[in-house]
């Protein structure tokens, strides 16, 4: 049996090739309300008598908190309450999810700052008022007295004191295998680089929001505006507020983009819940954009000092990396996950006999950091692929050739590395890396392009091309469940423990369900992100939904199908094996005319009052779970062609290709959308977006005029090659996640192409690549 596939599902592996609805770019079932302005995003949720919460935030990056004076604010019109740390002293700090790393607890964030202010934007007090405008008026009146302390803004600087007996390096993530020292001693050449990635993040277009309501009549606390991890968040909110989990329900409406940052448990989520319980009124909090830039998770900032030992043919013998991960002021819900992913995923697609990494997980006086689309991979793909380019240059090899020599071969799959990440062993499940590289080069016309670029350079233009290979990970377990029910009208409802952040989850799950059941996918109602509808769930993150919830959907739908055929067989007096379901009707599988019965009728016959159901659990319904101990690893290659304006240093992307093998595309149009949209975010991180700070730790990127998200004018035409050459053997659908491959290698590919245009190998050592830096590189300075 394949790992991850239950015996039941192994009988029903989804056949290759397009199905009736799976594998087709059908229209989304989500779009209607979103196009009519009938969506229900967090800010659209309102309850009678609600109060608006406004957060007073620290204006100093590091200070001793002396006093918070809320007396003037309490007398402002419309104000019902103002809370400081004393008012929430009983609420424990925000916890983190399970991790093998020990000793992080003292670094967790209190819901309101207690003795220290550790970053600009840290919540210090909250105001509750009857109107959002008046809440903001009152928040301005809260006086925070604090004594400035020296700030720490550089994660490569020696650690400082966090609290007595604790320094600002909570842990060092270490992984090692093979004979690293011996490899370096025996090396033909050692290549050494120092590289850094700038601080940026998901920045969804909808800011965060949280609306809590306590229904005393049923003793249930509700939280609306949630995303991503409802069940874990429910359990933690219940624990932290001293309630049973079944008395807390989280609801997900529409979600205006997640990208990793939304749906984590933040201080504001606990504050609205605590206030709803205590003030006995619904509490609404909508983050504003300036708050978002300093309050919602940052990501990415790392500095790597990496060395590679190679033989005379350019084959990797060992990599030794020390990196410094700028976590910001506190450890949040992810613990040290991004540093762990960076350490585990750095080797990527290459054979690597020996490896040692030390990830220094360090705190600074900046907004706390966590995951953002392709976490730990955008960073390490940049680092690893810079390294491969440097090896090629050192040995006089073509950059494509040096990669070919090191790629894990198709015949070596599954390929186990003596490494783990996210608590799972890294076993590359399937792949034909070199095959995809060849396809991508051919599609891009790589060789012909090189000649064309040479001609243009001879004519004075500054043009170049580069490529970067990546390996993604997806389908993080351990489990997810789906319940599918057909009601007496034939309508199908699918309840999933997954969440939707706007990526098309409902359509994809409906397609899988429809394929198995033989119904119209547009008639499948998909329920997600609601703890009141399903007891357990693991949410939407780590490109896991299509793999985990998709596989559970497949199994549940097959189970319902089997039940329907059995009941229909009794009704039609035919053996179930001779029946099939088409367009919601059970009929003969051989196409011969004969008796048939609708699923609606079958469901009615399985109702609780039907005589034949006596003694059995009624309903045409089944719940199935899918488990997986290992992740599925999508992979791909990015190819970039760009030109540089010698006068300004501006980079213009001329052509770009993302080739991505995701095992199987349930909906190729949505996959392309994921890849193109992912590219746009990678483009931001590679050329435009950065959270900057002044020397006092004041954030300089707090508006959309300072934090530069690419517009349509900055977007090149992006060609997308979706490959399905290496289905995952770990699930019955053969799928791997498609959410992050478009982002992963953008920084790396641009760096290579800018080097090439400048004719200066290794010139780019940091992201984002800014025009002023490029202008300086054109002058020949570093």
């Amino acid at each position: 049996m394949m790992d991850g596939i239950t015996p039941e599902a192994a009988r029903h592996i989804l056949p290759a090739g397009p199905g009736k609805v799976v594998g087709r770019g059908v229209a989304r079932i989500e779009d209607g309300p979103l196009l009519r302005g009938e969506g229900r995003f967090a800010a659209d949720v309102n309850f009678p008598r609600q109060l608006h919460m406004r957060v007073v935030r620290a204006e100093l990056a590091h200070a001793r908190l002396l006093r918070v004076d809320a007396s003037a604010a309490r007398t402002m019109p419309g104000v019902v309450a103002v809370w400081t740390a004393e008012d929430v002293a009983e609420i424990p700090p925000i916890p983190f999810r399970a991790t093998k790393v020990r000793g992080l607890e003292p670094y967790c964030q209190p819901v309101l700052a207690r003795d220290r202010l550790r970053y600009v934007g840290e919540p210090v007090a909250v105001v509750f008022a009857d109107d959002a405008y008046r809440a903001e008026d009152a928040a301005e009146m809260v006086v925070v007295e604090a004594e400035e302390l020296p700030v720490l803004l550089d994660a490569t600087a020696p650690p400082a004191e966090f609290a007595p007996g604790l320094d600002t390096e909570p842990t060092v993530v270490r992984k090692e295998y093979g004979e690293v020292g011996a490899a370096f001693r025996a090396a033909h050449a050692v290549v050494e680089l120092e590289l850094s990635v700038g601080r940026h993040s998901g920045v969804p277009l909808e800011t965060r929001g949280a609306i809590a309501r306590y229904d005393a009549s049923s003793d249930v606390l509700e939280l609306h505006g949630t995303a991503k991890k409802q069940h874990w968040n429910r359990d933690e909110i219940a624990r932290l507020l001293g309630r049973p989990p079944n008395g807390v329900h989280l609801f997900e409406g529409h979600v205006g983009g997640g990208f990793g940052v939304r749906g984590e448990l933040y201080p504001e989520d606990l504050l609205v819940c605590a206030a709803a319980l205590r003030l006995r009124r619904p509490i609404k909090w909508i983050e504003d954009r300036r708050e978002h830039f300093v309050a919602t998770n940052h990501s990415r900032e790392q500095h790597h000092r990496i060395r590679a030992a190679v033989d005379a043919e350019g084959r990797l013998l060992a990599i030794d990396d020390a990196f410094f991960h700028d976590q910001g002021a506190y450890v949040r819900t992810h613990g040290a996950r991004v540093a762990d992913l960076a350490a585990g995923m750095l080797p990527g697609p290459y054979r690597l006999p020996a490896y040692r990494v030390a990830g220094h997980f360090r705190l600074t006086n900046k907004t706390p950091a966590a995951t953002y689309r392709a976490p730990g991979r955008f960073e390490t793909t940049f680092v690893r692929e810079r390294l491969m380019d440097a090896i090629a240059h050192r040995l006089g090899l073509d950059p494509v050739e040096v990669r070919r020599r090191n790629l894990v071969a198709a015949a070596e799959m599954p390929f186990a590395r003596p490494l783990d990440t996210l608590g799972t062993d890294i076993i590359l499940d399937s792949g034909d890396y070199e095959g995809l590289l060849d396809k991508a080069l051919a599609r891009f016309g790589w060789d012909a392009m090189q000649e064309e670029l040479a001609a243009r350079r001879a004519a004075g233009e500054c043009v170049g091309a580069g490529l970067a290979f990546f390996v993604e990970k997806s389908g993080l377990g351990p489990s997810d469940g789906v319940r599918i029910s057909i009601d007496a009208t034939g309508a199908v409802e699918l309840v999933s423990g997954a969440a939707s952040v706007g990526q098309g989850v409902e359509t994809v799950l409906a397609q899988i369900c429809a394929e198995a059941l033989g119904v119209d996918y547009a008639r499948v109602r998909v329920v997600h992100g609601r703890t009141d509808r399903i007891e357990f769930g693991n949410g939407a993150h780590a490109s896991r939904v299509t793999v985990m919830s998709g596989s559970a959907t497949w199994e549940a739908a097959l189970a319902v199908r089997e039940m329907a055929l059995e009941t229909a067989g009794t009704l039609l007096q035919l053996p179930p094996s001779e029946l099939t379901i088409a367009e919601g009707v059970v009929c003969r599988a051989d196409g011969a005319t004969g008796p048939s019965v609708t699923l609606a009728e079958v469901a009615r016959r399985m109702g609780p009052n039907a005589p034949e159901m006596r003694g059995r659990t009624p309903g045409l319904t089944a719940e199935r779970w899918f488990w997986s101990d290992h992740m599925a690893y999508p992979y791909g290659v990015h190819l970039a062609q760009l030109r540089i304006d010698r006068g300004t240093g501006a980079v213009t992307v001329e052509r770009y290709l993302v080739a991505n093998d995701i095992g199987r595309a349930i909906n190729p149009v949505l996959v392309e959308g994921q890849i193109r949209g992912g590219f746009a975010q990678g483009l931001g991180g590679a050329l435009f977006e950065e959270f900057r700070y002044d020397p006092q730790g004041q954030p300089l990127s707090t508006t959309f005029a300072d934090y530069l998200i690419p517009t349509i004018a900055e977007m090149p035409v992006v060609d997308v090659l979706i490959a399905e050459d290496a289905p995952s053997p770990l699930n019955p659908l053969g799928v791997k996640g498609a959410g992050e491959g478009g982002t992963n290698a953008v920084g790396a590919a641009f760096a290579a192409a800018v080097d090439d245009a400048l004719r200066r190998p290794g010139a780019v050592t940091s992201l984002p690549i800014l025009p002023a830096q490029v202008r300086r590189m054109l002058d020949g300075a570093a």
Partner: protein
Amino acid sequence: MKPAPFAYHDPRSIEEVLDLLASLDNARLLAGGQSLMPMLNMRVAFPDHLIDLNRVEGLTGIMEEGGSIRIGAMTRQRDIEESEVIRARLPLLAEALSHVGHRQTRNRGTIGGSLCNLDPSAELVAVATALDAVLEVQGSAGIRELSIHDFPVGFMTPALAPEEMLTAIRLPVPPAGHGTAFTEFARRHGDYAIVSAAVLLVLEGSRIARASLTLGGVGAGPLRLRTAEAMLVGGAPSEATFGAAAAECAGIEAMSDPQAPAWYRRRLSAVLTRRALETAAARAAV
């Protein structure tokens, strides 16, 4: 990001506006709102009184009179950009406007609002400076005229008394044989320029008879490159002349920030000036 409270005034005539300005403390004029509204929403501007100019009669319109074009202060940027008169007579203004924000923001943004906001990178301020604009300023004492060169008196601070308002701008139409060009560099399309260059060249035969060079974004206000202008006048519109004039940018004082240090602004100034000169000369020659 909700504005603090203020009293709203919605006058219909210039006289009413002037009366309000004379009688109210801490009042601000609201034009197109594309800069002031964000400042209000972010609570970095706290006026007690907001005087809305959007329904005031007599502040809009584009008219050619004498050798100048007069534009009412509340004329929308998009109306100016689309105006046949402007496209024919002051193409430099139309070209610069295409870089001001986006089509959508130009639907609301006004020429007077942009000039009075005096952002160091504002395209319209640079163009007005290049074209030697004259501003009509009205106060209780009547109308006075003010050269654009005397308008900025500090960082984002115009030479307007609290009871005065800008009512119109007059732009002299350059003589026949001229060419203009506007170039700028911004990180993204529609962003405020890091540096912009507005150039006017008047050719007589094969000689440059008049040159006007203005940089935006390098300092607190627009920078007219008088030395470079003097170098150009009398010379031939050649690569060598333009190169020498652009090289003058190496000596200018420039602002510095993390994305654009002073050396980079100087480099951009030289590059953009040269490109604008070449384009303007080509256009003049047509």
